[in-house]
C-alpha cells in the first residue's frame, strides 16, 4: 500500500525525470492527429438526394433545438468547456526493487549487499525508464563495489516489447579508487514466448568499446503467493578493458535462484542463492590479480514496488 512517504519518493523521481527529459511533452502520448491522410481518403462524398432521406425517422430533439441544429452540433467537436469523456492517457509512475538483499559468501570471501531496481514514468506507449543495479562489500577497512544506472526513453513497439535508448552511468570503487564510465545504451525489454522476462542491452562506451548484457528470468508459481524465480545474467565485451578488468568475449555469468513469498503483490520477502563466475579472459585477469573467479552466495532480501 502506498503511504505518503513513498508517494514523496515517487514525486521526487518523477520531478527528476521531467527535468532530465526537458519537459513533460517529451514522452507524451501519440498525437491523435497522426493519421489524418490515407484513412479518410477512402470516404467518398455522397449525393445529397438519397432515397433513405425521404424516410427520416422522427427523432425526439433536445428542447429548443431544431433537427438541423442537432445535426450541425453532431458534426462539431465537443465545446471547449466540456471535460474529457475518457481520461485514458494518464501519465503514471512505477518503481520496483526486484532485489534488495544481503549476500552471504560461503567461501570466506566478503559478504555483499546488492540491489536491482527499475522505474518508469510515462503513458502507455512512451515512457522514461531508470534501471540500475549495484553491489557493495566490506572487509575491515576495505569498502568496495560497483553500480550502474541506465536512463532510457522507451517505446512500446509491439504488444510484448519495449525498445529503449539512452545513457548508462557505471562506476567501480574500492579503497581510494573511484572510476566511472559513461556509455550510450540501447535495449530491448519484454516478455518472450514461454513467459520469460527478458532484458537485453548493448552499450557503446566513451572509449568505443561495445558491451552487452542479457538478463532473463522466469517465475515458477508454486502456489498463488509462493514463487520460485530462476534468473540469469550474462555480460559480454567486444574488447579487453583493463580499467574495468574485463576481457573480450563473454566475461561473466550470474545464475540466481530466489524463492519469494508475496505477502502482497507489491511486497515479497525471499531467500535464495547466487552463483557468479568470471569467465574466459576476464576470469584469467581476476586470477592474475589473485581473486577468485567464481563465487557462491546464499542470500535473503525483499522485493517491493512503490507506485
Amino acid at each position, binding site marked *: 500500500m502506498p503511504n505518503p512517504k513513498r508517494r514523496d519518493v515517487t514525486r521526487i523521481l518523477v520531478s527528476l525525470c521531467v527535468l532530465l527529459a526537458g519537459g513533460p511533452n517529451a514522452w507524451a502520448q501519440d498525437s491523435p492527429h497522426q493519421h489524418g491522410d490515407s484513412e479518410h481518403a*477512402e*470516404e467518398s462524398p455522397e449525393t445529397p438526394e438519397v432515397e433513405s432521406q425521404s424516410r427520416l425517422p422522427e427523432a425526439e430533439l433536445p428542447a429548443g433545438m431544431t433537427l438541423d441544429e442537432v445535426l450541425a452540433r453532431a458534426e462539431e467537436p465537443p465545446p471547449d468547456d466540456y471535460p474529457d469523456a475518457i481520461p485514458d492517457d494518464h501519465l503514471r509512475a512505477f518503481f520496483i526493487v526486484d532485489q534488495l538483499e544481503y549476500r552471504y559468501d560461503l567461501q570466506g570471501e566478503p559478504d555483499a549487499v546488492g540491489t536491482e531496481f527499475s522505474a518508469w514514468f510515462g503513458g502507455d506507449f512512451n515512457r522514461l525508464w531508470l534501471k540500475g543495479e549495484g553491489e557493495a562489500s566490506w572487509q575491515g577497512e576495505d569498502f568496495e563495489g560497483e553500480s550502474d544506472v541506465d536512463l532510457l526513453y522507451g517505446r512500446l513497439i509491439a504488444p*510484448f516489447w519495449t525498445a529503449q535508448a539512452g545513457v548508462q552511468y557505471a562506476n567501480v570503487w574500492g579503497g581510494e579508487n573511484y572510476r566511472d564510465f559513461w556509455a550510450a545504451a540501447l535495449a530491448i525489454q519484454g516478455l518472450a514466448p514461454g*513467459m520469460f522476462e527478458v532484458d537485453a542491452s548493448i552499450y557503446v562506451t566513451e572509449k568505443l568499446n561495445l558491451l552487452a548484457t542479457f538478463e532473463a528470468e522466469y517465475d515458477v508459481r508454486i502456489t498463488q503467493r509462493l514463487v520460485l524465480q530462476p534468473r540469469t545474467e550474462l555480460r559480454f565485451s567486444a574488447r579487453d578493458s583493463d580499467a574495468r578488468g574485463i576481457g573480450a568475449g563473454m566475461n561473466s555469468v550470474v545464475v540466481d535462484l530466489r524463492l519469494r513469498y508475496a505477502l502482497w503483490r507489491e511486497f515479497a520477502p525471499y531467500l535464495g542463492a547466487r552463483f557468479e563466475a568470471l569467465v574466459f579472459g576476464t576470469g584469467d585477469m581476476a586470477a592474475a590479480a589473485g581473486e577468485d573467479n567464481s563465487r557462491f552466495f546464499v542470500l535473503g532480501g525483499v522485493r517491493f514496488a512503490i507506485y
Partner: protein
Amino acid sequence: MMNGPDSQRENSISRRGFVAGAAAGLASLKIAGPLWARTNPELRAGKFGALDASTPGGIDLYIEKQEVRVDEKIGQAITINGGFPGPVIRMKEGDDALIRVHNRMHESTSIHWHGILLPFTMDGVPGISFRGIAPGETFTYRFKVRQNGTYWYHSHTGMQEQLGHYGQLIIEPAQPDPVAYDVEHTIVLSDWTFEDPHTAMKKLKTIEGYYNFQRPTLANLSAQVEATGESLGEVISKRLQWNWMRMDPTDIADITGATFTYLLNGRSAAQNPTFFARPGQKVRFRITNASTMTYYDFRVEGLPLTVVQADGQNVEPVEVDELRVAVAETYDVLVTMPDEKAYTIFAETMDRSGFARGTLAPRPGMSAAIPARRHRPMLTMADMGMMHGAMEGMDEGDETKDMESSHGAHAMNGEHKMDDKPSTSVTYPPHDERRVAPIKERKPLPIQNLPEMVQHGPDEHGAASIAMAMHAYRRFDEPGIGLGKDGRRVLTYGQLKALQTPPDRRPPTREINLHLTGNMHKYIWGFNGKKWSESKMIRFKFGERLRINFINDTMMSHPIHLHGMWMDLYVGHDYAKNPRKHTVNVNPAELLTVDISADAPGQWAFHCHLLYHMEAGMFRTVAVVRDLSGEPIDAKS
C-alpha cells in the same frame, strides 16, 4: 407500497399497491432524504426506496458522498437520496420524466439513463452530452418516455459507478403488460471494493494479474488433472502451450473476490437479503447487473426460471435453469413459488471467486443451503479462435469432468471447421471504421445465414493489441465459459426472440467491422487497436440502417453498450425476431453482428461496459450526422 411485514428490508413491490405507495414515498423522500443521511453516519448499504418520476412535479435525487456500512465494514460510498443502490425509479411509458439531480459532493457527477431513448443532451455523459453536474449544481433531466421495461441508471463520471452510484429504473408499459405476475422484486447485482477505484486501476495498469489468485500453479496441478480427467503430461503440456503464447487461461476477471464484495441489492451474501412470495405466487425478478467488472451467473437453486425480458424488451418466454448476466444487461425472469420452503437465489461470479446471494421464502427468517461453488473455469483454445480445426485437440475445457457438452452448440459438433466451404468464412477488410461506400453502391446486406466465421485479416492493430485469435466465429448458441456442462439449461443469445417485431427492420446497407482489442499485459484497451483519445468519432448517417460486426480479438468477454439507439442482435433465426439490446456481450474470439437504426441525431457514447476497460480507452464517440461527406471529427479536440 410494501408487500409483507418485513419487506422494508427489500425493495418488494406488488403491482397494485405501487401507485399509491410511490406518491407517499415521494413525499417523504423529498423532505427526509437528505436529512436522514446526515443524522445516520453508519448508514447501511442496501437501504433504498422507490420514486415515481412521471408525477407532474418530478423527483429530486441528492448525490452525496458518505460513510456507508458495507457488510460490517465502513466504506466511502456515493449515495443517492441517502441510499446505495439509489432508489428504484419508476416511470410510465408515454409520460414525461422530470428528474432534478442535486450534486452535493465536492466533485462533478452525472447520471446516465442506461438503455433509454432520449435527446442526446439528456443522456448524461460528461464530455459528450453535457458538461457534467458541477459540485453544488442541480441538473434537470426532462424527456419523453418512449419505451417500457426494466432498465437502470448510473454515473458516467470517472469511476463513481464503483462507489454505489447506480440504481434500477422501471418503466410501466402504456399498453397492458404481456407479462402476468403476482409480485415483483428488484435484484441489483453489483460489486464493491473498499479500495479507491483509482488505486485499483493503478494496480491493473502496473502489476499484471494483480487480483487473480486462481492462476495455474504447481500446487494445483493435481487438482487440474483430477478435474479434467487428463494425464499429468497432458495438463503440463497445455500449460506450456499457454505459456508459449504468453497467455493466462485463468484471466477471466480482471478484478476478483480478492478485493470485491459481491452485493445483491447492496447486501452481501452473509446478510442474505430475503424476498417474499407465498406458495403459488408468480414472482417477477427484475435483474440488473450494475457491476463494474463482474459477470454473474444467476439462478434460483431448484426452481426453473422463465426469461420474459432482456434489456427491457419483452421476449418470447424461455425456460432455463440459469442465465449469465453480463455487466450492464438486465433480464426479467418469472419464478413460481412452489411451496412453503426457502430457496437460495444464487449469483455466482463468472470467475467463481465469489458470489452474491439472497433467499426467496414465504416468511422472514427462513433460508436454504448455499449451493456448492463450482470450479473456476479456464479459457480454452476455442477462446483463442483455434477450436475449429487442427488445434481442436488442444481444447482443455473447464475443470469439470463432463467434457461431453450438453449445450449442443454448433461450434462443438464441428459444423464449421476450418476446412469448411469458403462460403462460411469471410475475411473482412481491416480498419474500416471510416471506410464508407457511396450511397449509390449500397445494397441491402444479407440478413440471414451470415458468415459463420471471419478470418483475422492481415492487419495488425499495433502494440495496443494482443490478437491471438486467427478466427472469430458465431458463438450465440454457446452458454459461455464455465457454463452448460453440469446439466443445467443455460440461456443463450440464440434463444432470445423479440415478442413483437420493432418498427424498423430494414436490412442494413452499410457495415462497420470493429475489432475489440486489448493488451492485457499493459492494460490498454480499445477498438481496432486505438483507445478513445487516439480515435476519431464513428459516424452514422441519420436515418440509415447500418451493421456493426464485432470481432473480439481478446481473450476476455466485453459487454458493448451503445447509447441512444438499439442494437438488433443477429442470432440466426427470423430477422424480424432478432432481439433488441442496449448491451451485447461479445465472448472471446466471437464474431457478433448487430444492426442499428441511426434514428437519434447527436453524439453518443459507445463503449465496453467493464468500467476499467472503458477508462483504459475501450470507448468511442458515435456521431449521428446529416451525411458522411464531412471530415471525421476528432473525439478529443
